[in-house]
């Protein structure tokens, strides 16, 4: 006697309604869930290292503990090595920040008056137009320190994320295995299909972007250090972190690093040297990293890419920017799998293979 499983059409609508309600609930409590989301992303990115050794038959729990101990040692070593540099640089930066800001304001005012004279417009009109543009730009510039301070709560998760991530890593695929066990048997294959698609696109994207961010951060630090630019560490961290948003890291490196070099050395050639450095980094990224990363990553249309970034930033701020593309990857996988089920179950998909009429010999 077999249990009946057919209950009409596949419950796509129910799934989408439940998923939509869950997303809305998540949006309402996003502040509380942020460290868990970051921890899940952290565990997801780190997991392949655990999986690699687990395939050799080693216990996951032991591997995770060992991994944390090794990371702690490496982190401590890196901190001890860079401590003087970081402390010196942050002290110098906090002392010089007001000077930098006033220099930027002076520079902008001088350039504004030059531009007013050159524009083929009546002086009053040109001045008014530039005033409104420059005024909003300076206003934005003055709010940069408070914007950076606004990111500080994220740094507070610095300890919480690895702590929660530890438990995610310990559990590993356990959560998904439990989901498979409780799912109705009819939907087990579909659940695995969906998770496989999401894992393929999301994993490749997240790991790829992490590699790019680390590479850009390290290369810009070494490059700026070689050029003797002040605040190399802060600029490279800024450039590396902003690389989570595609192309932003290099753009920020050019603007901030180039501006710093120009101010420090007083020559435009210093600015161009930094520009060359970041163009070189971008080129190396394009030639060396992207072919490896893009081979298996999702191919989103540039418009979808841009729309995801804008929506993410609008709804969740900086975190939204970081997670916009992964969310788009999940949505794309959901649509692809949904369509694949619909097409195969409704007979839209052809199963014929070439050469099927040739006799078996």
């Amino acid at each position, binding site marked *: 006697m*077999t249990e009946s499983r*057919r209950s009409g059409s596949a419950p796509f609508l129910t799934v989408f309604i439940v998923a939509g309600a869950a997303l809305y609930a998540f949006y309402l409590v996003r502040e509380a869930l942020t460290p868990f989301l970051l921890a899940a992303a952290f565990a997801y990115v780190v997991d392949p290292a655990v999986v690699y050794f687990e*395939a050799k038959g080693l216990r996951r729990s032991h591997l995770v503990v060992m991994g944390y101990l090794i990371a702690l040692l490496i982190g401590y070593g890196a901190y001890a090595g860079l401590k003087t540099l970081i402390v010196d640089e942050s002290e110098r930066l906090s002392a010089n920040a007001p000077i930098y800001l006033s220099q930027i304001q002076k520079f902008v005012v001088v350039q504004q008056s030059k531009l007013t004279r050159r524009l083929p417009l009546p002086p009053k009109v040109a001045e008014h137009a530039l005033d409104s543009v420059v005024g909003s730009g300076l206003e934005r510039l003055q709010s940069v320190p408070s914007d950076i301070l606004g990111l500080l709560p994220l740094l507070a998760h610095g300890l919480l994320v690895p702590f929660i991530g530890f438990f995610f890593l310990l559990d590993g695929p356990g959560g998904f295995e439990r989901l498979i066990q409780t799912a109705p048997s009819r939907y087990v294959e579909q659940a695995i299909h969906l998770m496989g698609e999401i894992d393929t696109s999301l994993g490749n994207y997240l790991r790829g972007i992490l590699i790019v961010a680390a590479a850009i951060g390290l290369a810009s630090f070494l490059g700026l250090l070689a050029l003797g630019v002040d605040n190399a560490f802060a600029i490279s961290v800024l450039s590396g972190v902003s690389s989570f948003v595609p192309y932003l890291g290099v753009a920020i490196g050019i603007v901030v690093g180039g501006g710093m070099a120009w101010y420090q050395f007083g020559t435009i050639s210093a600015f161009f040297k930094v520009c060359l450095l970041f163009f070189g980094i971008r080129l190396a990224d394009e030639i060396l990293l992207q072919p490896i990363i893009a081979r298996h990553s999702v191919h989103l249309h540039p418009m979808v890419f841009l729309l995801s970034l804008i929506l993410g930033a609008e709804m969740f701020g900086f975190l939204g920017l970081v997670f916009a593309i992964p969310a788009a990857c999940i949505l794309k996988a959901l649509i692809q799998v949904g369509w694949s089920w619909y097409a195969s179950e409704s007979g839209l998909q052809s199963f014929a293979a070439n050469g099927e009429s040739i006799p078996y010999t």
Partner: protein
Amino acid sequence: MSLFKGLKHWFLDPQFARKKQFLRSLEIFQDLNNNELGRLVQALHARTYRPGEVIFEEGDIGRALFILESGKVDLTRRGPGGETLPLYTVKPGEWFGEMALLESLPRSATAAATETSRLHLLYRTKLEALLQAEPRIGVTIMGHLARLLSTRLRRATGAFTASAARD
């Protein structure tokens, strides 16, 4: 030496080793080495089915191969009059639904557990990912499936020819 053995025992996962041992005993995976079996264990999903629970139904689109570790699974087909025709009873160590690894066609039979059964699922996209990352694993499995398919086709052709000769 005993310290090394003790450490090794402390680090090794007995459950993982048991799963690998089980896979090694299957003909389809016999040519895989230790590391490859480890990768395969990670690609499989285990699920326990209750007695009477349907694993898949005739006409469903197949997307996974099922390997029976313990229990019993009945394969049946609907007859022309809607009656249930028994085809085969799958025993531990045997697998079924393998054609789903080659193409997403409707299942040609219904599979249902007749007692509490532990099954391992190898999903098609997982196998495709393995084919890219560890081609030897994919080639070994596909080679076995091709031989199996060829044998079945020869047998079916033989049976058809014999039947035609009798008529």
